[in-house]
């Protein structure tokens, strides 16, 4: 432990309410609460508290309050408490400051500066409860044109079609690997994706063999720099294969799953020995260039007999539009763009908080560039990183996305409270941990229901908003910036987004 750090949270226990049931003590993997039998009293070690609120919500008498302890240092806009605390940690260890989850810095959130349109008078809004309101979306490359032969009453499509994958709602669970998250959380995502007719993404930790048959059809498998668990069967069991180049939370760097998280099951899924670090190099070492990416795209298509769309996921960075164009020309069927606020199980704080660009700007730029070059139809765009609600989804689609990836939102639905301590392996909610004592807190039966409810609720809200705009099929909103207006944005920002200011 560190010598001179202030606790980040204050714990207040209302003694008159506490019944010494010791639930808080049992629930906390960080060992914050401790019962002293002699004094018949619970004590707190505030230094250990991460503010996950597990004890608070499970306290049967509402005796507990956990509150951020804001700053006891002399107020200073430049030297904030975070900066000072991190520096002190480094002074003691010489280490790289780690963090988890997504960027929490106050970069502008463009979703909150975009407003949607609705029909008034000139065309009617549509009621989704009683009329068709279609959200079905196809992910994959579309042909330039179709050659259709009408021969003796028989209709035959002669053009060769690229594989496309239909999803029932434009929401896909983003890559979270078994290893980063618990088996229970991982399986919950799989169940929900299957039930709702959408997809989940294995991340780069492999797909357990016993899940392949049941969930393969709803799976995006990743082929990333570590190539964990990648064999021909894994690739062929999936619906889509995704080459992970980058991640919004940590563009340009790799990942380390620490050896202590590599249990027997994870070892088997990743096909590495138990207890070794699972190191994902920063680049894929067979991709140093755009033509190398093309080589891997077609290697994967060869390995799966051209039956699966290949997606390429990149972090949103400065030249994202040009890069996306190259990716499409390299043969990718889907381009996934992960923005500045995308989540992670572990990332260096310096990278997470400072590298990359906001998804909204990246997405709009990519969509525009691909249209300018006449190749937008050659790929689907998946937008990821900081999608918090159905309104964000619908705005993303209006900015050009085909569908969105949700990660953090799904975790929150399962219980996550964004304490940002995913990298410690002590997730009290049983999500981002491999400790069986903690993971059993998450029941895939129940948490998959929560995820389905998320998909259901959001889909319904999307339908409502679509109907309000007088649109009854999601494809009519794709890239349709006429239904967006900006509020409180600067000229250059509106230009990049391709959106008019409100009232314009």
């Amino acid at each position, binding site marked *: 432990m560190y010598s001179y750090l202030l606790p980040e949270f204050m714990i207040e226990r209302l003694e008159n309410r506490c019944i010494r049931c010791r639930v808080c003590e049992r629930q906390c993997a960080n060992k914050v609460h401790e019962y002293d039998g002699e004094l018949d009293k619970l004590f707190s070690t505030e230094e250990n508290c991460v503010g996950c609120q597990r004890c608070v919500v499970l306290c049967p008498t509402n005796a507990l309050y956990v509150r951020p302890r804001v700053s006891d240092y002399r107020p200073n806009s430049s030297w904030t408490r975070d900066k000072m605390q991190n520096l002190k940690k480094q002074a003691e260890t010489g280490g790289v400051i780690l963090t988890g989850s997504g960027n929490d810095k106050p970069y502008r959130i463009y979703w909150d500066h975009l407003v949607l349109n609705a029909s008034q008078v000139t065309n009617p809004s549509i009621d989704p409860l009683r009329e068709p309101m279609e959200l079905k979306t196809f992910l994959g490359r579309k042909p330039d044109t179709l050659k259709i032969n009408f021969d003796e009453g028989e209709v035959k499509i002669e053009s060769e079609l690229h594989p496309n994958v239909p999803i029932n709602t434009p929401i896909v669970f983003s890559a979270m690997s078994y290893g980063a998250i618990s088996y229970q959380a991982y399986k919950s995502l799989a169940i929900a994706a299957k039930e709702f007719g959408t997809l989940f993404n294995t991340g780069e930790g492999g797909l357990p063999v016993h899940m392949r048959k049941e969930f393969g059809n709803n799976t995006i498998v990743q082929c990333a720099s570590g190539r964990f668990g990648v064999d021909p069967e894994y690739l062929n069991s999936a619906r889509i294969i995704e080459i992970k180049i980058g991640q919004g939370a940590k563009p340009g760097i790799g990942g380390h799953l620490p050896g202590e998280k590599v249990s027997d099951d994870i070892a088997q899924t990743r096909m590495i020995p138990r207890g070794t670090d699972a190191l994902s190099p920063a680049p894929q070492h067979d991709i*140093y*260039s*755009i*033509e*190398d990416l*093309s*080589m891997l795209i*077609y290697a994967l298509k060869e390995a799966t007999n051209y039956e699966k769309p290949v997606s390429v996921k990149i972090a949103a960075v400065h*030249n994202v*539009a*040009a*890069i996306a*164009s*190259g990716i499409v*020309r*390299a043969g990718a069927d889907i381009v996934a763009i992960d923005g500045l606020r995308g989540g992670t199980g572990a990332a260096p704080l310096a990278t997470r908080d400072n590298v990359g660009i906001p998804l909204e700007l990246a997405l709009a730029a990519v969509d525009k*560039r691909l249209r300018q*070059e006449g190749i937008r139809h050659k790929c689907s765009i998946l937008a990821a990183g900081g999608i918090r609600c159905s309104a964000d989804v619908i705005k993303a689609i209006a900015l050009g996305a085909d569908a969105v990836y949700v990660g953090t939102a799904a975790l929150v639905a399962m219980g996550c409270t964004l304490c940002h301590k995913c990298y410690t392996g002590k997730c009290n909610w049983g999500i981002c941990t491999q400790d069986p004592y903690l993971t059993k807190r998450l029941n895939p039966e129940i948490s998959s229901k929560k995820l389905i409810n998320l998909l259901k609720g959001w889909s319904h809200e999307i339908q409502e908003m679509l109907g309000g705009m007088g649109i009854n099929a999601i494809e009519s909103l794709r890239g349709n910036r006429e239904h967006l207006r900006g509020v409180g944005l600067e000229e250059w920002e509106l230009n990049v987004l391709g959106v008019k200011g409100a009232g314009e």
Partner: protein
Amino acid sequence: MLVQKYFQSERFVPDKDMDACGLFGVMNISGKRFGGEMAINAIKNMKVRGSGLGGGFAIYGLYPDYKDYYALHIMYQNKNLNAKRRVEAFLKEHFYMVYDEEIPTNPDITLFSPPIVWRYFVAPQKKNEELAVPDDEYVVSRVMYLNTNVDDAYVFSSGKDVGVFKGVGFPEEIADYFMLDRLYQGYIWTVHSRFPTNTPGWWGGAHPFNILDWTVVHNGEISSYGTNRRFLEMHNYYCTLFTDTEVLAYAVDLLMRRQGLPIEVVSKIFAPPMWDAIEHMKESDQKLYTTLRMTYAPLLMNGPFTVIIAHHDEMIGLTDRIRLRPITAGAKEDFVFLSSEEAAIRAVCPDLELAWTPPGGEPVVVRLNSKDHLLSVNKSI
């Protein structure tokens, strides 16, 4: 003095192109001229390294009848004859022109919006105060003037006895279009197949990039571009094309032509040894490499690259210092090859005598009437 384009702020300097590619070069070290068949077929063999949005050739020993004159290849886009008139008036004022003609093209080959392409054989026509200016400097500055001041006109080749042919398309289509295999011979052929990620629609954006008799074909992306460019601007090289390749070409011109450094040293400026490696060198080398790195730090070409640089009598292959992009060299009798892939050499020279791959940062220097290219063999695999 080259021409500087004015931007209100660096914010408005265009993004550079990013592209990657296939490269091939072949040289006859006894200087015997040969046709384009090998270069064309080799690059065709590596078709998937390009995306059909740029291809081009540089040929040395191309114009023996006019070898004392600068051969200007100029493209006029959008059929802009006004641009042509302006350029020709300019040429008349600043040069003696001995011959000019439209570069013949094959009417059966349809390419993406081809420009009018013309060639002029010229000699400098210097005014009083310009007499002290060396010919090469004179030509470079006039070329730069045209490229930055006349819309729709672009000088893409300006050396003596050398010519660049390039455009939008796969390189074999460019070769067909200009009928390279039928009409031309040379003792060095370099060729480039482009896989751009932006500005794909422009003929001038294809490689090789040329300045005087220097040509560069390049594969990769130079992450240090911004640093390199600003340093070159300080030395009066203003980038007009915003490609990594342009930066390389200017850096070569600065170091080799103006400063007279040999390629063996220049390659160690572009791709210097790691400090780790320098530590284990003998003292004199330590001093040399330390000083080189100190002096020329802004010209370290960081990030993945392979280049084939050529000028008269010399063809050089070089990769970045951790060899993030491929190169293979090959030799048979008087022919020496450089290629992104070995199989492409084998496809055009099945009885190759020697194939080798140098380590990152180690140049393969192919020189006329010398066996210098073999110096890299011992360090290679």
